[in-house]
C-alpha cells in the first residue's frame, strides 16, 4: 500500500514538473497522454515565419534542425548571403522569427521525427542544411539523381514539398510521398 502511494506521488510529481519545464511545444504530461500528436514534426504555426521564409522556399518546420543550426542560419549578417540569396529582414521581424524558431527547434520538440533528427547529429555539430542531417540523408539514400536533381519538378532535395504531399502539415511519412514524373513512393 505504501509503495503504491509513493508510486502515484512520483507520477503526479513527474507530470507537474514536466508541465512546468516542458518548453514551448507541450508539457511532458500532455506528451505522455497524447501519443497521436507526437509523431512527425510540428507544422509551422507562425504567420510571420510562414510568410517571410515561405516567400522564397518551403517554410521548413523549425523541428527539422537543432537550435545551434538555426542560430547560424538566422544570424542577421548570414541572412544577407543565405545560400547565395539576399534574405535580409528588418530587426523586429528577424527577432520575432528567431524567437519562434529557437523555441521550436528539434531538441525542444516532443515530436518523434524531430527527436530522431536531434539524436542523429553528433555532439558539437550544427549542420546548416537539413539535407546534411544524418537522419535525413539516411531516409533519402535510395533516391536517384533522376528523381531529384535531374527532375525538373523537384530540382533539389531541399524542396521537401515537391514530393512530400503533406509537408505543410509537418507530415513526412512514406505513404504521403509522390515524386513528380515518377509517382507514389512504394517501399
Amino acid at each position, binding site marked *: 500500500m505504501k509503495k503504491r502511494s509513493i508510486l502515484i506521488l512520483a507520477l503526479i510529481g513527474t507530470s507537474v514538473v514536466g508541465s512546468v519545464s516542458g518548453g514551448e511545444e507541450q508539457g511532458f504530461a500532455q506528451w505522455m497522454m497524447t501519443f497521436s500528436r507526437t509523431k512527425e514534426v510540428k507544422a509551422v504555426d507562425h504567420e510571420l515565419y510562414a510568410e517571410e521564409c515561405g516567400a522564397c522556399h518551403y517554410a521548413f518546420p523549425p523541428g527539422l534542425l537543432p537550435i545551434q543550426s538555426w542560430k547560424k542560419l538566422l544570424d542577421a549578417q548570414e541572412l544577407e548571403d543565405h545560400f547565395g540569396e*539576399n534574405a535580409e529582414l528588418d530587426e523586429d521581424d528577424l527577432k520575432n522569427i528567431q524567437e519562434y524558431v529557437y523555441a521550436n527547434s528539434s531538441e525542444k520538440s516532443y515530436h518523434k521525427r524531430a527527436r530522431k533528427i536531434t539524436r542523429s547529429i553528433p555532439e558539437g555539430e550544427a549542420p546548416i542544411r537539413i539535407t546534411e542531417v544524418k537522419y535525413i540523408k539516411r531516409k533519402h539514400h535510395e533516391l536517384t539523381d533522376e528523381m531529384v536533381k535531374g527532375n525538373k519538378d523537384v530540382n533539389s532535395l531541399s524542396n521537401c514539398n515537391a514530393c512530400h504531399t503533406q509537408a505543410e502539415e509537418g507530415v513526412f511519412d512514406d505513404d504521403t510521398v509522390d515524386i513528380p514524373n515518377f509517382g507514389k513512393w512504394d517501399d
Partner: protein
Amino acid sequence: MFFRIFAIACAVILCPQMGQAQNAARELQNIYATQGTVDFSAERGGAKWGLEVQSKSGDRRSCSTCHGADLTQAGQHIKTKKHLEPMAFSVNKERYIKTKKIEKWFKRNCKWTWGRECTAQEKGDFLEYLLAQ
C-alpha cells in the same frame, strides 16, 4: 441629419483606404522626393531595369534576368527557379499595397543584382516604370 453625418464619416474613413491599393508606391516616391531627387521617369527606370552588372559569382545580372522583359508575364528566379508573379502594376496590384514590402524587396534585390543598395532616384524611377506597365 444623422444620415448626413454618417455619410461624411464613412467617406472620411473609406477614402484613404480606397486609394491605398495603388498608393504605397506613390507614398514611397513622395518620401524619395525629399532625398534630393529629380522628377521620376519611367524611361530612366526602364533603362536601368535592363542594366546588367557583373556579380561576385561571375554571372551578369539585371532586373530582367529574373523578372523578364515583359513585365505583364510571370518570371522565374534564375538560380532558385522560384516562380515570380508579374511585376506590372496593370496585372498585379498586389505588389504595390505595402510600403514595407516594396522597400524590403528593393533592398534585397538591388544588393543581389547590382551588389549595392539602389538610390532614392533609382527606386523612384523603377516605381514610375513599373506603375506604367
